[in-house]
Protein backbone atom coordinates (compact mmCIF):
# COMPACT_ATOMS: atom_id res chain seq x y z
CA UNK A 1 0.00 0.00 0.00
CA UNK A 2 1.26 3.34 -0.92
CA UNK A 3 -0.07 5.10 2.16
CA UNK A 4 2.72 6.05 4.43
CA UNK A 5 2.52 3.63 7.26
CA UNK A 6 4.55 5.85 9.46
CA UNK A 7 1.82 8.42 9.24
CA UNK A 8 -0.18 7.23 12.23
CA UNK A 9 2.91 6.99 14.40
CA UNK A 10 4.16 10.44 13.67
CA UNK A 11 0.77 11.97 14.24
CA UNK A 12 0.38 10.12 17.45
CA UNK A 13 3.58 11.52 18.86
CA UNK A 14 2.72 15.06 17.91
CA UNK A 15 -0.65 14.60 19.47
CA UNK A 16 0.90 13.23 22.61
CA UNK A 17 3.33 16.10 22.74
CA UNK A 18 0.58 18.64 22.40
CA UNK A 19 -1.47 16.95 25.08
CA UNK A 20 1.49 16.94 27.39
CA UNK A 21 2.20 20.60 26.89
CA UNK A 22 -1.44 21.45 27.49
CA UNK A 23 -1.47 19.34 30.62
CA UNK A 24 1.67 21.01 31.91
CA UNK A 25 0.31 24.46 31.35
CA UNK A 26 -3.25 23.78 32.41
CA UNK A 27 -2.76 24.79 36.07
CA UNK A 28 -2.31 28.38 34.95
CA UNK A 29 -5.92 28.45 33.84
CA UNK A 30 -7.44 26.11 36.36
CA UNK A 31 -8.68 26.74 39.84
CA UNK A 32 -7.86 24.52 42.79
CA UNK A 33 -11.11 22.64 42.47
CA UNK A 34 -10.54 21.82 38.82
CA UNK A 35 -6.99 20.81 39.59
CA UNK A 36 -8.55 18.29 41.91
CA UNK A 37 -10.82 17.05 39.15
CA UNK A 38 -7.86 16.61 36.82
CA UNK A 39 -5.80 14.84 39.44
CA UNK A 40 -8.59 12.35 39.93
CA UNK A 41 -8.98 12.12 36.17
CA UNK A 42 -5.29 11.22 35.80
CA UNK A 43 -5.74 8.61 38.47
CA UNK A 44 -8.59 7.03 36.54
CA UNK A 45 -6.64 7.35 33.30
CA UNK A 46 -3.86 5.35 34.90
CA UNK A 47 -6.27 2.65 35.93
CA UNK A 48 -8.09 2.60 32.60
CA UNK A 49 -4.94 2.39 30.54
CA UNK A 50 -3.35 -0.31 32.68
CA UNK A 51 -6.59 -2.26 32.53
CA UNK A 52 -6.54 -1.83 28.78
CA UNK A 53 -3.08 -3.35 28.70
CA UNK A 54 -4.27 -6.32 30.70
CA UNK A 55 -7.55 -6.77 28.90
CA UNK A 56 -6.98 -5.32 25.48
CA UNK A 57 -3.51 -6.64 24.89
CA UNK A 58 -3.29 -9.74 27.02
CA UNK A 59 -6.96 -10.53 26.76
CA UNK A 60 -7.35 -10.96 30.52
CA UNK A 61 -10.64 -9.35 31.41
CA UNK A 62 -9.97 -9.13 35.08
CA UNK A 63 -12.41 -7.50 37.45
CA UNK A 64 -9.82 -7.35 40.17
CA UNK A 65 -8.04 -4.22 39.04
CA UNK A 66 -9.47 -2.02 41.76
CA UNK A 67 -8.47 -4.61 44.32
CA UNK A 68 -4.83 -4.16 43.34
CA UNK A 69 -5.28 -0.43 43.53
CA UNK A 70 -6.73 -0.85 47.02
CA UNK A 71 -3.80 -3.05 48.04
CA UNK A 72 -1.40 -0.32 47.03
CA UNK A 73 -3.35 2.37 48.86
CA UNK A 74 -4.16 0.47 52.03
CA UNK A 75 -0.68 -0.98 52.40
CA UNK A 76 0.85 2.45 52.32
CA UNK A 77 -1.86 3.86 54.56
CA UNK A 78 -1.61 1.11 57.14
CA UNK A 79 2.18 1.17 57.20
CA UNK A 80 2.06 4.89 57.67
CA UNK A 81 -0.46 4.65 60.45
CA UNK A 82 1.10 1.87 62.47
CA UNK A 83 4.79 2.14 61.63
CA UNK A 84 5.09 5.77 60.60
CA UNK A 85 6.46 4.72 57.25
CA UNK A 86 7.21 7.72 55.05
CA UNK A 87 4.74 8.00 52.17
CA UNK A 88 7.11 7.28 49.31
CA UNK A 89 8.41 4.14 50.94
CA UNK A 90 4.85 3.13 51.72
CA UNK A 91 3.83 3.60 48.11
CA UNK A 92 6.80 1.55 46.97
CA UNK A 93 5.94 -1.27 49.33
CA UNK A 94 2.28 -1.04 48.36
CA UNK A 95 3.20 -1.34 44.72
CA UNK A 96 5.37 -4.36 45.43
CA UNK A 97 2.65 -6.07 47.41
CA UNK A 98 0.18 -5.39 44.63
CA UNK A 99 2.65 -6.96 42.24
CA UNK A 100 3.08 -10.04 44.37
CA UNK A 101 -0.68 -10.41 44.64
CA UNK A 102 -0.89 -9.92 40.89
CA UNK A 103 1.64 -12.68 40.46
CA UNK A 104 -0.45 -15.02 42.57
CA UNK A 105 -3.75 -14.21 40.96
CA UNK A 106 -2.22 -14.18 37.51
CA UNK A 107 -0.81 -17.58 38.13
CA UNK A 108 -4.08 -18.94 39.41
CA UNK A 109 -6.19 -17.75 36.51
CA UNK A 110 -3.94 -18.94 33.74
CA UNK A 111 -6.27 -21.50 32.37
CA UNK A 112 -9.48 -19.58 32.95
CA UNK A 113 -11.70 -18.65 30.11
CA UNK A 114 -13.23 -15.20 29.94
CA UNK A 115 -16.33 -15.88 32.07
CA UNK A 116 -14.48 -17.83 34.72
CA UNK A 117 -11.77 -15.19 34.91
CA UNK A 118 -14.40 -12.54 35.41
CA UNK A 119 -16.15 -14.51 38.13
CA UNK A 120 -12.98 -15.37 39.95
CA UNK A 121 -11.62 -11.86 39.95
CA UNK A 122 -14.98 -10.50 41.09
CA UNK A 123 -14.85 -12.93 43.98
CA UNK A 124 -11.29 -11.87 44.79
CA UNK A 125 -12.20 -8.21 44.76
CA UNK A 126 -15.27 -8.69 46.93
CA UNK A 127 -13.47 -10.88 49.43
CA UNK A 128 -10.79 -8.26 49.81
CA UNK A 129 -13.37 -5.55 50.26
CA UNK A 130 -15.20 -7.54 52.91
CA UNK A 131 -12.01 -8.22 54.80
CA UNK A 132 -11.07 -4.54 54.78
CA UNK A 133 -14.56 -3.71 55.95
CA UNK A 134 -14.74 -6.51 58.48
CA UNK A 135 -11.40 -5.83 60.09
CA UNK A 136 -12.35 -2.25 60.78
CA UNK A 137 -10.41 -2.41 64.02
CA UNK A 138 -7.26 -2.29 61.94
CA UNK A 139 -8.35 -0.61 58.74
CA UNK A 140 -10.93 1.75 60.26
CA UNK A 141 -13.40 0.31 57.76
CA UNK A 142 -16.13 2.68 56.63
CA UNK A 143 -15.02 5.35 59.01
CA UNK A 144 -12.00 5.88 56.82
CA UNK A 145 -8.30 5.32 57.23
CA UNK A 146 -6.37 8.55 57.57
CA UNK A 147 -3.37 8.68 55.28
CA UNK A 148 -0.57 11.21 55.51
CA UNK A 149 -0.51 13.67 52.62
CA UNK A 150 2.38 13.12 50.25
CA UNK A 151 3.72 16.63 50.60
CA UNK A 152 3.07 16.97 54.28
CA UNK A 153 0.50 18.95 56.17
CA UNK A 154 2.05 22.33 55.46
CA UNK A 155 1.45 22.31 51.73
CA UNK A 156 -2.09 23.37 50.97
CA UNK A 157 -1.82 23.93 47.25
CA UNK A 158 -2.79 21.17 44.88
CA UNK A 159 -0.10 22.02 42.37
CA UNK A 160 2.56 19.53 43.47
CA UNK A 161 -0.05 16.79 43.55
CA UNK A 162 -1.18 17.69 40.08
CA UNK A 163 2.28 17.43 38.61
CA UNK A 164 3.06 14.28 40.54
CA UNK A 165 -0.01 12.44 39.32
CA UNK A 166 0.62 13.69 35.81
CA UNK A 167 4.22 12.54 35.97
CA UNK A 168 3.20 9.11 37.27
CA UNK A 169 0.64 8.84 34.49
CA UNK A 170 3.08 9.85 31.78
CA UNK A 171 5.86 7.60 33.01
CA UNK A 172 3.56 4.62 33.32
CA UNK A 173 2.07 5.29 29.92
CA UNK A 174 5.54 5.39 28.42
CA UNK A 175 6.45 2.17 30.18
CA UNK A 176 3.29 0.41 29.09
CA UNK A 177 3.55 1.75 25.58
CA UNK A 178 7.09 0.49 25.29
CA UNK A 179 5.97 -2.87 26.59
CA UNK A 180 3.01 -3.03 24.28
CA UNK A 181 5.03 -2.18 21.22
CA UNK A 182 7.91 -4.41 22.05
CA UNK A 183 8.16 -8.06 21.34
CA UNK A 184 6.27 -8.70 24.57
CA UNK A 185 3.30 -6.81 23.25
CA UNK A 186 3.45 -8.72 20.05
CA UNK A 187 3.40 -12.01 21.86
CA UNK A 188 0.52 -10.84 24.03
CA UNK A 189 -1.50 -10.00 20.97
CA UNK A 190 -0.71 -13.34 19.48
CA UNK A 191 -1.83 -15.03 22.67
CA UNK A 192 -5.00 -13.05 22.73
CA UNK A 193 -5.93 -13.82 19.16
CA UNK A 194 -5.24 -17.48 19.36
CA UNK A 195 -3.56 -18.92 22.38
CA UNK A 196 -2.97 -22.35 21.03
CA UNK A 197 -1.41 -21.11 17.83
CA UNK A 198 0.87 -18.81 19.74
CA UNK A 199 1.93 -21.62 22.01
CA UNK A 200 2.53 -23.79 19.02
CA UNK A 201 4.88 -21.16 17.69
CA UNK A 202 6.88 -21.22 20.86
CA UNK A 203 5.46 -18.28 22.75
CA UNK A 204 5.72 -18.83 26.46
CA UNK A 205 2.07 -18.18 27.14
CA UNK A 206 2.36 -18.61 30.86
CA UNK A 207 5.25 -16.22 31.26
CA UNK A 208 3.67 -13.43 29.30
CA UNK A 209 0.22 -13.70 30.79
CA UNK A 210 1.62 -13.62 34.28
CA UNK A 211 4.04 -10.86 33.41
CA UNK A 212 1.21 -8.68 32.23
CA UNK A 213 -0.75 -9.35 35.37
CA UNK A 214 2.22 -8.38 37.51
CA UNK A 215 3.00 -5.22 35.59
CA UNK A 216 -0.56 -3.98 35.44
CA UNK A 217 -1.31 -4.82 39.04
CA UNK A 218 1.81 -2.95 40.09
CA UNK A 219 0.69 0.06 38.13
CA UNK A 220 -2.72 -0.16 39.75
CA UNK A 221 -1.05 -0.44 43.14
CA UNK A 222 1.12 2.56 42.37
CA UNK A 223 -1.93 4.54 41.37
CA UNK A 224 -3.62 3.49 44.58
CA UNK A 225 -0.65 4.57 46.64
CA UNK A 226 -0.47 8.05 45.18
CA UNK A 227 -4.22 8.38 45.32
CA UNK A 228 -4.24 7.50 49.01
CA UNK A 229 -1.60 10.08 49.84
CA UNK A 230 -3.46 12.70 47.90
CA UNK A 231 -7.00 12.14 49.06
CA UNK A 232 -5.70 11.38 52.59
CA UNK A 233 -8.59 9.09 53.43
CA UNK A 234 -9.38 5.55 52.35
CA UNK A 235 -12.59 3.59 52.67
CA UNK A 236 -13.58 0.15 51.35
CA UNK A 237 -15.84 1.94 48.88
CA UNK A 238 -12.93 2.47 46.52
CA UNK A 239 -13.17 -1.11 45.38
CA UNK A 240 -16.86 -1.73 45.00
CA UNK A 241 -17.79 -3.44 41.77
CA UNK A 242 -19.51 -0.37 40.28
CA UNK A 243 -16.16 1.44 40.55
CA UNK A 244 -14.52 -1.35 38.57
CA UNK A 245 -17.36 -1.00 36.12
CA UNK A 246 -16.56 2.67 35.72
CA UNK A 247 -12.91 1.96 34.92
CA UNK A 248 -13.95 -0.70 32.44
CA UNK A 249 -16.38 1.71 30.85
CA UNK A 250 -13.63 4.30 30.50
CA UNK A 251 -11.26 1.85 28.89
CA UNK A 252 -13.85 0.52 26.49
CA UNK A 253 -15.36 3.82 25.51
CA UNK A 254 -11.89 5.25 25.12
CA UNK A 255 -10.62 2.24 23.26
CA UNK A 256 -9.37 -0.89 24.88
CA UNK A 257 -6.99 -1.64 22.05
CA UNK A 258 -4.97 1.47 22.62
CA UNK A 259 -3.44 2.56 25.89
CA UNK A 260 -3.49 6.22 25.03
CA UNK A 261 -7.09 6.02 23.91
CA UNK A 262 -8.02 4.34 27.15
CA UNK A 263 -6.16 6.97 29.14
CA UNK A 264 -7.82 9.74 27.21
CA UNK A 265 -11.15 8.02 27.70
CA UNK A 266 -10.49 7.98 31.40
CA UNK A 267 -9.70 11.67 31.58
CA UNK A 268 -12.61 12.77 29.45
CA UNK A 269 -15.15 10.59 31.21
CA UNK A 270 -14.06 11.57 34.68
CA UNK A 271 -14.18 15.25 33.82
CA UNK A 272 -17.54 14.86 32.15
CA UNK A 273 -18.90 13.04 35.17
CA UNK A 274 -17.85 15.93 37.36
CA UNK A 275 -19.25 18.44 34.92
CA UNK A 276 -22.56 16.63 34.73
CA UNK A 277 -22.90 16.30 38.47
CA UNK A 278 -26.17 18.20 38.41
CA UNK A 279 -27.81 15.39 36.49
CA UNK A 280 -27.13 13.02 39.33
CA UNK A 281 -28.16 9.49 38.50
CA UNK A 282 -28.79 10.12 34.81
CA UNK A 283 -25.17 10.77 33.97
CA UNK A 284 -24.28 7.20 34.86
CA UNK A 285 -27.23 5.96 32.84
CA UNK A 286 -25.81 7.78 29.85
CA UNK A 287 -22.41 6.20 30.37
CA UNK A 288 -23.95 2.81 30.77
CA UNK A 289 -25.75 3.24 27.48
CA UNK A 290 -22.59 4.57 25.87
CA UNK A 291 -20.70 1.56 27.12
CA UNK A 292 -23.15 -0.92 25.68
CA UNK A 293 -23.42 0.87 22.37
CA UNK A 294 -19.66 1.28 22.07
CA UNK A 295 -19.15 -2.39 22.75
CA UNK A 296 -21.64 -3.34 20.13
CA UNK A 297 -20.93 -0.87 17.39
CA UNK A 298 -17.51 0.63 18.01
CA UNK A 299 -15.45 -2.12 19.50
CA UNK A 300 -12.27 -0.10 19.22
CA UNK A 301 -13.68 2.61 21.36
CA UNK A 302 -14.56 6.14 20.43
CA UNK A 303 -11.27 7.96 20.80
CA UNK A 304 -9.41 6.16 18.05
CA UNK A 305 -12.09 6.75 15.39
CA UNK A 306 -12.21 10.36 16.50
CA UNK A 307 -8.52 10.71 15.87
CA UNK A 308 -8.96 9.01 12.55
CA UNK A 309 -11.57 11.55 11.60
CA UNK A 310 -9.22 14.39 12.46
CA UNK A 311 -6.51 12.99 10.33
CA UNK A 312 -8.85 12.24 7.51
CA UNK A 313 -9.91 8.80 6.50
CA UNK A 314 -7.20 6.36 7.27
CA UNK A 315 -8.89 3.08 6.45
CA UNK A 316 -9.68 1.00 9.49
CA UNK A 317 -7.46 -1.78 8.31
CA UNK A 318 -4.57 0.61 8.36
CA UNK A 319 -4.60 1.13 12.07
CA UNK A 320 -4.98 -2.50 12.72
CA UNK A 321 -2.01 -3.31 10.61
CA UNK A 322 0.01 -2.04 13.54
CA UNK A 323 -0.35 -5.45 14.96
CA UNK A 324 -1.26 -7.92 12.30
CA UNK A 325 1.24 -6.82 9.72
CA UNK A 326 3.88 -6.56 12.34
CA UNK A 327 2.90 -10.01 13.35
CA UNK A 328 3.34 -11.07 9.80
CA UNK A 329 6.64 -9.29 9.50
CA UNK A 330 8.04 -10.62 12.70
CA UNK A 331 6.74 -14.11 12.39
CA UNK A 332 10.17 -15.24 11.44
CA UNK A 333 11.56 -13.81 14.64
CA UNK A 334 9.28 -15.74 16.94
CA UNK A 335 11.81 -18.47 17.15
CA UNK A 336 13.97 -16.17 19.14
CA UNK A 337 11.31 -15.80 21.84
Amino acid at each position, binding site marked *: MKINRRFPFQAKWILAGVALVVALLAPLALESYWLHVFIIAYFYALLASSWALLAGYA*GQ*FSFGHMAFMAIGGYTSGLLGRYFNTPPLLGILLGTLLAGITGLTIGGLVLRFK*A*SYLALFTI*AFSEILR*MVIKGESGITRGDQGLSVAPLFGTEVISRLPYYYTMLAVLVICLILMYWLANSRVGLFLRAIREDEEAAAARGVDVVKFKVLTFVVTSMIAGLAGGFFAHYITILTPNILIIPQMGLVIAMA*IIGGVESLIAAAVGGVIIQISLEWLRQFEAWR*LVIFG*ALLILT*LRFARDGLVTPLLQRIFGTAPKAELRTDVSSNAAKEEVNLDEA
Partner: protein
Amino acid sequence: MQYFMALATTGLIMGIIYALMALGLTLIFSILNVINFAHGEFYMLGGYFSYFLLTWFTGLNPFIAVLVSGLMVALIGLIFEYFFLRPMHLGRIERPPEYAVLITFGLSFFLQNLALAVFGPYPHRPPSFFSGAVDLGITRVSADRLTASVLSLVLMALLLLLINKTWIGKALQAVSQNKDAAAVVGINPLRMNTIAFALGVGLASIAGALLAPSFSIVPDVGAVPSIRSYVIIVLGGMGSLPGSILGGILIGLVESFGAGYFPDPSRGLTYKTAFGLVIFALVLLFKPTGFFGRRRS
Protein backbone atom coordinates in the same frame (compact mmCIF):
# COMPACT_ATOMS: atom_id res chain seq x y z
CA MET B 1 -31.80 -29.78 67.74
CA GLN B 2 -34.79 -27.55 67.44
CA TYR B 3 -32.51 -24.74 66.46
CA PHE B 4 -30.83 -26.85 63.82
CA MET B 5 -34.14 -27.82 62.31
CA ALA B 6 -35.34 -24.24 62.39
CA LEU B 7 -32.28 -23.11 60.50
CA ALA B 8 -32.56 -26.01 58.09
CA THR B 9 -36.16 -25.17 57.33
CA THR B 10 -35.55 -21.51 56.59
CA GLY B 11 -32.46 -22.46 54.61
CA LEU B 12 -34.45 -24.88 52.53
CA ILE B 13 -37.25 -22.43 51.92
CA MET B 14 -34.85 -19.73 50.76
CA GLY B 15 -32.73 -22.18 48.83
CA ILE B 16 -35.63 -23.13 46.63
CA ILE B 17 -36.14 -19.53 45.64
CA TYR B 18 -32.42 -19.09 45.03
CA ALA B 19 -32.54 -22.17 42.85
CA LEU B 20 -35.23 -20.67 40.65
CA MET B 21 -33.10 -17.66 39.88
CA ALA B 22 -30.00 -19.76 39.37
CA LEU B 23 -31.89 -22.01 36.99
CA GLY B 24 -32.45 -19.03 34.78
CA LEU B 25 -28.76 -18.29 34.77
CA THR B 26 -27.86 -21.88 34.04
CA LEU B 27 -30.33 -22.04 31.21
CA ILE B 28 -28.73 -19.02 29.61
CA PHE B 29 -25.27 -20.40 30.08
CA SER B 30 -26.21 -23.79 28.86
CA ILE B 31 -27.74 -22.62 25.60
CA LEU B 32 -25.86 -19.42 24.83
CA ASN B 33 -22.60 -20.15 26.59
CA VAL B 34 -22.79 -16.74 28.18
CA ILE B 35 -22.76 -15.81 31.84
CA ASN B 36 -25.39 -13.15 32.23
CA PHE B 37 -23.76 -10.61 34.53
CA ALA B 38 -26.97 -8.63 34.54
CA HIS B 39 -29.03 -11.45 36.02
CA GLY B 40 -29.48 -9.60 39.29
CA GLU B 41 -30.82 -6.56 37.48
CA PHE B 42 -33.55 -8.61 35.83
CA TYR B 43 -34.42 -9.88 39.31
CA MET B 44 -34.64 -6.25 40.38
CA LEU B 45 -36.83 -5.30 37.42
CA GLY B 46 -39.20 -8.12 38.24
CA GLY B 47 -39.65 -6.65 41.69
CA TYR B 48 -40.22 -3.11 40.40
CA PHE B 49 -42.63 -4.06 37.63
CA SER B 50 -44.65 -6.10 40.06
CA TYR B 51 -44.71 -3.19 42.49
CA PHE B 52 -45.86 -0.69 39.87
CA LEU B 53 -48.47 -3.00 38.41
CA LEU B 54 -49.96 -3.51 41.83
CA THR B 55 -49.80 0.20 42.63
CA TRP B 56 -51.41 1.36 39.40
CA PHE B 57 -54.02 -1.38 39.16
CA THR B 58 -55.04 -1.69 42.76
CA GLY B 59 -57.44 -4.55 42.28
CA LEU B 60 -54.94 -6.72 40.51
CA ASN B 61 -54.29 -10.19 41.82
CA PRO B 62 -50.67 -10.25 43.05
CA PHE B 63 -50.00 -13.54 41.33
CA ILE B 64 -51.09 -12.13 38.01
CA ALA B 65 -48.79 -9.20 38.66
CA VAL B 66 -45.88 -11.57 39.16
CA LEU B 67 -46.68 -13.39 35.96
CA VAL B 68 -47.09 -10.22 33.95
CA SER B 69 -43.82 -8.76 35.22
CA GLY B 70 -42.13 -11.99 34.31
CA LEU B 71 -43.47 -11.67 30.79
CA MET B 72 -42.50 -8.01 30.54
CA VAL B 73 -38.97 -8.68 31.64
CA ALA B 74 -38.74 -11.68 29.35
CA LEU B 75 -39.66 -9.35 26.52
CA ILE B 76 -36.90 -6.95 27.49
CA GLY B 77 -34.52 -9.87 27.59
CA LEU B 78 -35.65 -10.95 24.19
CA ILE B 79 -34.98 -7.54 22.71
CA PHE B 80 -31.58 -7.31 24.33
CA GLU B 81 -30.62 -10.77 23.14
CA TYR B 82 -31.70 -10.04 19.63
CA PHE B 83 -29.75 -6.82 19.27
CA PHE B 84 -26.75 -7.42 21.41
CA LEU B 85 -26.15 -11.13 21.77
CA ARG B 86 -27.35 -12.61 18.53
CA PRO B 87 -24.65 -10.81 16.53
CA MET B 88 -22.15 -12.85 18.49
CA HIS B 89 -23.54 -16.02 17.07
CA LEU B 90 -23.74 -14.56 13.62
CA GLY B 91 -20.02 -14.02 13.57
CA ARG B 92 -20.32 -10.26 13.59
CA ILE B 93 -18.48 -9.76 16.84
CA GLU B 94 -14.80 -10.24 17.41
CA ARG B 95 -13.66 -12.24 20.36
CA PRO B 96 -17.14 -13.23 21.50
CA PRO B 97 -16.23 -14.52 24.97
CA GLU B 98 -14.86 -11.16 26.12
CA TYR B 99 -17.69 -9.37 24.45
CA ALA B 100 -20.25 -11.51 26.25
CA VAL B 101 -18.73 -10.72 29.63
CA LEU B 102 -18.49 -7.03 28.95
CA ILE B 103 -21.86 -6.51 27.33
CA THR B 104 -23.82 -8.19 30.08
CA PHE B 105 -21.74 -6.37 32.66
CA GLY B 106 -22.42 -3.14 30.83
CA LEU B 107 -26.12 -3.96 30.83
CA SER B 108 -25.98 -4.48 34.57
CA PHE B 109 -24.31 -1.09 35.05
CA PHE B 110 -26.87 0.54 32.80
CA LEU B 111 -29.95 -1.06 34.33
CA GLN B 112 -28.95 -0.37 37.90
CA ASN B 113 -28.41 3.30 37.22
CA LEU B 114 -31.51 3.51 35.08
CA ALA B 115 -33.55 2.08 37.91
CA LEU B 116 -31.98 4.58 40.28
CA ALA B 117 -32.71 7.49 37.98
CA VAL B 118 -36.26 6.43 37.16
CA PHE B 119 -37.49 4.83 40.37
CA GLY B 120 -35.45 6.78 42.88
CA PRO B 121 -33.49 5.38 45.78
CA TYR B 122 -36.25 4.90 48.35
CA PRO B 123 -37.25 1.36 49.23
CA HIS B 124 -40.67 0.17 48.14
CA ARG B 125 -42.73 -2.85 48.83
CA PRO B 126 -45.59 -4.34 46.88
CA PRO B 127 -48.52 -5.65 48.93
CA SER B 128 -48.24 -9.11 50.45
CA PHE B 129 -49.58 -12.23 48.80
CA PHE B 130 -50.83 -13.38 52.15
CA SER B 131 -50.34 -11.47 55.33
CA GLY B 132 -49.01 -12.79 58.57
CA ALA B 133 -46.85 -15.76 59.31
CA VAL B 134 -47.30 -19.51 59.22
CA ASP B 135 -46.40 -21.67 62.17
CA LEU B 136 -44.62 -24.76 60.91
CA GLY B 137 -44.01 -26.10 64.34
CA ILE B 138 -40.24 -25.99 64.14
CA THR B 139 -40.24 -22.37 63.28
CA ARG B 140 -42.42 -19.63 61.92
CA VAL B 141 -42.19 -18.44 58.38
CA SER B 142 -43.78 -15.40 56.83
CA ALA B 143 -46.66 -16.34 54.57
CA ASP B 144 -45.10 -14.37 51.74
CA ARG B 145 -41.87 -16.24 51.92
CA LEU B 146 -43.58 -19.60 52.06
CA THR B 147 -45.74 -18.63 49.09
CA ALA B 148 -42.67 -17.57 47.15
CA SER B 149 -40.99 -20.85 47.92
CA VAL B 150 -43.95 -23.02 46.99
CA LEU B 151 -44.45 -21.15 43.75
CA SER B 152 -40.76 -21.46 42.93
CA LEU B 153 -41.02 -25.18 43.41
CA VAL B 154 -44.01 -25.31 41.09
CA LEU B 155 -42.25 -23.25 38.47
CA MET B 156 -39.13 -25.36 38.65
CA ALA B 157 -41.21 -28.46 38.18
CA LEU B 158 -42.91 -26.87 35.19
CA LEU B 159 -39.57 -25.90 33.76
CA LEU B 160 -38.19 -29.39 34.06
CA LEU B 161 -41.34 -30.66 32.46
CA LEU B 162 -40.83 -28.19 29.65
CA ILE B 163 -37.25 -29.20 29.13
CA ASN B 164 -37.85 -32.89 29.18
CA LYS B 165 -41.25 -33.41 27.68
CA THR B 166 -41.91 -30.69 25.14
CA TRP B 167 -40.47 -30.18 21.73
CA ILE B 168 -39.03 -26.80 22.61
CA GLY B 169 -37.41 -28.26 25.67
CA LYS B 170 -35.79 -30.98 23.66
CA ALA B 171 -34.68 -28.47 21.07
CA LEU B 172 -33.08 -26.43 23.85
CA GLN B 173 -31.34 -29.50 25.13
CA ALA B 174 -30.08 -30.27 21.66
CA VAL B 175 -28.64 -26.81 21.22
CA SER B 176 -26.97 -26.97 24.58
CA GLN B 177 -25.31 -30.20 23.70
CA ASN B 178 -24.16 -29.48 20.22
CA LYS B 179 -25.21 -26.41 18.34
CA ASP B 180 -24.12 -27.52 14.93
CA ALA B 181 -25.67 -30.93 15.20
CA ALA B 182 -28.90 -29.31 16.31
CA ALA B 183 -28.80 -27.04 13.29
CA VAL B 184 -28.30 -30.07 11.08
CA VAL B 185 -31.53 -31.63 12.30
CA GLY B 186 -33.45 -28.45 11.61
CA ILE B 187 -33.44 -26.63 14.90
CA ASN B 188 -32.71 -22.95 14.61
CA PRO B 189 -30.06 -22.31 17.27
CA LEU B 190 -30.49 -18.58 17.03
CA ARG B 191 -34.13 -18.81 17.90
CA MET B 192 -33.36 -21.18 20.71
CA ASN B 193 -30.84 -18.70 22.05
CA THR B 194 -33.42 -15.97 22.18
CA ILE B 195 -35.96 -18.24 23.82
CA ALA B 196 -33.45 -19.42 26.37
CA PHE B 197 -32.36 -15.90 27.25
CA ALA B 198 -35.90 -14.61 27.55
CA LEU B 199 -36.89 -17.61 29.62
CA GLY B 200 -33.81 -17.31 31.81
CA VAL B 201 -34.26 -13.67 32.68
CA GLY B 202 -37.99 -14.25 33.04
CA LEU B 203 -37.25 -16.74 35.79
CA ALA B 204 -34.96 -14.27 37.52
CA SER B 205 -37.61 -11.59 37.37
CA ILE B 206 -40.26 -13.92 38.78
CA ALA B 207 -37.93 -14.70 41.66
CA GLY B 208 -37.57 -10.96 42.18
CA ALA B 209 -41.29 -10.36 42.06
CA LEU B 210 -41.95 -13.23 44.44
CA LEU B 211 -39.47 -11.94 47.00
CA ALA B 212 -40.33 -8.27 46.72
CA PRO B 213 -43.01 -8.36 49.43
CA SER B 214 -40.55 -10.10 51.74
CA PHE B 215 -37.45 -8.00 51.23
CA SER B 216 -38.58 -4.72 49.68
CA ILE B 217 -36.92 -3.33 46.58
CA VAL B 218 -34.20 -0.78 45.88
CA PRO B 219 -32.26 -0.28 42.63
CA ASP B 220 -29.33 -2.39 43.77
CA VAL B 221 -31.41 -5.16 45.31
CA GLY B 222 -30.12 -7.46 42.59
CA ALA B 223 -26.44 -7.20 43.43
CA VAL B 224 -26.34 -9.85 46.15
CA PRO B 225 -28.64 -12.35 44.39
CA SER B 226 -26.46 -11.94 41.32
CA ILE B 227 -23.30 -13.02 43.06
CA ARG B 228 -25.18 -15.74 44.85
CA SER B 229 -26.39 -17.10 41.51
CA TYR B 230 -22.84 -17.29 40.20
CA VAL B 231 -21.81 -19.20 43.27
CA ILE B 232 -24.72 -21.60 42.83
CA ILE B 233 -24.12 -22.37 39.22
CA VAL B 234 -20.43 -22.87 39.74
CA LEU B 235 -21.06 -25.21 42.64
CA GLY B 236 -23.81 -27.07 40.91
CA GLY B 237 -22.02 -27.17 37.64
CA MET B 238 -22.51 -24.63 34.93
CA GLY B 239 -25.08 -25.78 32.48
CA SER B 240 -26.64 -28.40 34.67
CA LEU B 241 -30.25 -27.84 35.65
CA PRO B 242 -30.41 -30.39 38.44
CA GLY B 243 -27.06 -29.06 39.61
CA SER B 244 -28.45 -25.58 39.96
CA ILE B 245 -31.44 -26.79 41.91
CA LEU B 246 -29.28 -28.70 44.31
CA GLY B 247 -26.76 -25.88 44.40
CA GLY B 248 -29.48 -23.40 45.24
CA ILE B 249 -30.77 -25.44 48.12
CA LEU B 250 -27.24 -26.05 49.31
CA ILE B 251 -26.40 -22.37 49.34
CA GLY B 252 -29.65 -21.62 51.14
CA LEU B 253 -28.66 -24.06 53.84
CA VAL B 254 -25.06 -22.87 53.99
CA GLU B 255 -26.14 -19.28 54.44
CA SER B 256 -28.60 -20.22 57.12
CA PHE B 257 -26.24 -22.41 59.10
CA GLY B 258 -23.30 -20.11 58.52
CA ALA B 259 -25.01 -17.11 60.00
CA GLY B 260 -26.69 -19.17 62.64
CA TYR B 261 -23.62 -20.94 63.95
CA PHE B 262 -20.79 -18.51 63.23
CA PRO B 263 -18.80 -18.34 66.46
CA ASP B 264 -18.26 -14.62 66.54
CA PRO B 265 -21.70 -13.07 66.25
CA SER B 266 -20.32 -9.59 65.95
CA ARG B 267 -18.57 -10.53 62.73
CA GLY B 268 -20.74 -13.38 61.55
CA LEU B 269 -23.00 -11.63 59.17
CA THR B 270 -20.20 -9.61 57.63
CA TYR B 271 -18.13 -12.62 56.77
CA LYS B 272 -20.98 -14.89 55.75
CA THR B 273 -20.88 -13.78 52.14
CA ALA B 274 -17.09 -13.70 52.09
CA PHE B 275 -16.98 -17.30 53.24
CA GLY B 276 -19.28 -18.30 50.43
CA LEU B 277 -17.08 -16.46 47.97
CA VAL B 278 -13.96 -18.21 49.19
CA ILE B 279 -15.63 -21.57 48.64
CA PHE B 280 -16.69 -20.29 45.26
CA ALA B 281 -13.15 -19.26 44.34
CA LEU B 282 -11.80 -22.61 45.47
CA VAL B 283 -14.36 -24.51 43.44
CA LEU B 284 -13.47 -22.45 40.39
CA LEU B 285 -9.85 -23.31 40.89
CA PHE B 286 -10.10 -26.96 41.66
CA LYS B 287 -13.33 -28.30 40.31
CA PRO B 288 -14.70 -25.82 37.80
CA THR B 289 -17.26 -28.27 36.55
CA GLY B 290 -18.90 -28.30 39.94
CA PHE B 291 -20.91 -31.24 41.12
CA PHE B 292 -22.88 -32.00 38.01
CA GLY B 293 -21.43 -29.94 35.25
CA ARG B 294 -20.18 -31.47 32.12
CA ARG B 295 -17.49 -30.44 29.76
CA ARG B 296 -18.95 -28.45 26.93
CA SER B 297 -18.61 -29.65 23.39
